[in-house]
């Protein structure tokens, strides 16, 4: 495992129309490491992920991915990160194969039908390749969204509630995928409310409260109940 810093955030501040969401957030994620971002609703988890994904500009501070500034070097950062939001970035009236083809071409990658089908097979969607996404369950859409990363090979994954709306089988699949991604040297920052699966992948848990990182702790040796206690102590108090 390398010790290269994949994500470095320092003094990050974000305010929307005078409402302060993030205030002096400092956080680091190393290559091959996964950090679970915990916090109450509105704590700023999604905002932090969107700033790192170059979708939102910070009011102040230094958000960096692989040493690149997320505002000044946004174009380069976009080539390194894989972002998974709530919406999955799928078109309902395209098939799974067509969706993957669309995002692959738009990402500037070479399209090879065999590679596209292999990527769908990796997320266990090869049997549904030619079916319209409109007929898919939430978990299948999530897996299709993740299939993009098989082809684009990002170095950093920014995931917003990746386990939301997944059943046990899909959750297990995502769990395995994220472990493999980490083992390959990738870095993961994910927001989660799942103290079970989400923390199973994570090496550290960072709790956002009051616009700051209230606690940043390794999760090795901590059970779900321990983390829940820490969460109750820090997240709810600071919210």
């Amino acid at each position, binding site marked *: 495992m390398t010790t290269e810093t994949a994500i470095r955030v320092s003094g990050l501040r974000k305010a929307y129309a005078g409402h302060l969401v993030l205030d002096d957030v400092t956080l680091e994620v190393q290559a091959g490491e996964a950090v679970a971002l915990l916090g109450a609703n509105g704590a700023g988890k999604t905002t932090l992920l969107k700033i790192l*994904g170059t979708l939102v500009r910070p009011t102040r501070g230094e958000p960096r991915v692989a040493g690149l500034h997320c505002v000044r070097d946004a174009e380069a950062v976009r080539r390194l*990160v894989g972002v998974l*939001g709530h919406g*999955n*970035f*799928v*078109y309902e009236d395209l098939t799974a194969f067509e969706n993957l083809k669309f995002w692959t071409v738009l*990402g500037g990658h070479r399209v090879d039908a065999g590679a596209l089908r292999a990527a769908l097979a990796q997320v266990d969607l090869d049997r549904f390749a030619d079916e319209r996404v409109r007929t898919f369950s939430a978990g299948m859409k999530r897996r299709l969204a993740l299939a993009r990363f098989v082809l684009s090979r990002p170095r950093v994954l920014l995931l917003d509630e990746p386990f939301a709306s997944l059943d046990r089988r899909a959750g297990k699949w995502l769990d395995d995928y994220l472990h493999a991604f980490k083992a390959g040297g990738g870095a993961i920052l994910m927001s989660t409310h799942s103290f079970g699966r989400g923390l199973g992948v994570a090496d550290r848990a960072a709790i956002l409260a009051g616009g700051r990182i209230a606690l940043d702790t390794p999760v090795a040796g901590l059970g779900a109940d321990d983390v829940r206690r820490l969460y109750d102590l820090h997240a709810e108090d600071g919210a």
Partner: protein
Amino acid sequence: MTYARRAWIVLWKDVVTERRSKETLNALFFFALLLLFVFQFTLGGDRERLGAALPGLLWLGFILSGILGLGRTFLAERENDCLEGLLLSPGDKSAIYLGKVAGNVALMLTVEAMLLALFALFFNVDVAGALPPLAGVMVLGTVGFAAIGTLFAAMTAHVRARELLFPVLLLPVQVPILLACVKATEAVLLGEPLSAVAHWLKLLAAADVIFVVAGVLTFDAILEG
């Protein structure tokens, strides 16, 4: 090459999704049909009044259905956060703009062809003889309309009052195109040669170039917000 492929894939996606859902096409078709009923009811069988009003009515139908269609340009992108996906895609965003413009031109020309056929049927007007020059005027007018309309649709995609704001922004800018289109269509339907309205056609061509170039240069900044 990558730029052209990226523009093409956006056009392909828009055409495929519209062909399958037919959401916009159906809405525009019934809207056009309603317009025709209203025009027919107002003008009745008075051929003289109809002849004078036809170019204006035709373009009124094109523009109104076009506004409806263009306003929906980024609706599909809002579903499932695809607009964020477009924003995250690396590379020059103007390729996305050109793909969107091409998709809108294709959609609008389809609706305009339907509307023209219905006009000919409802008002018993023979447009077959004037079809080639009329098609030229329609293409020139539609490209300019779609170019600036796509840009404003992107601009208002995140605005809450976009249904109100979009036509308010678009219509004043469309006035020169609309005037040129009506004048050129009038001449064509009267059987005059296109050379008689060359100045209007040059205005249309210049507007097309200006709007497309403005779109290519500014789309990235507009999408980034």
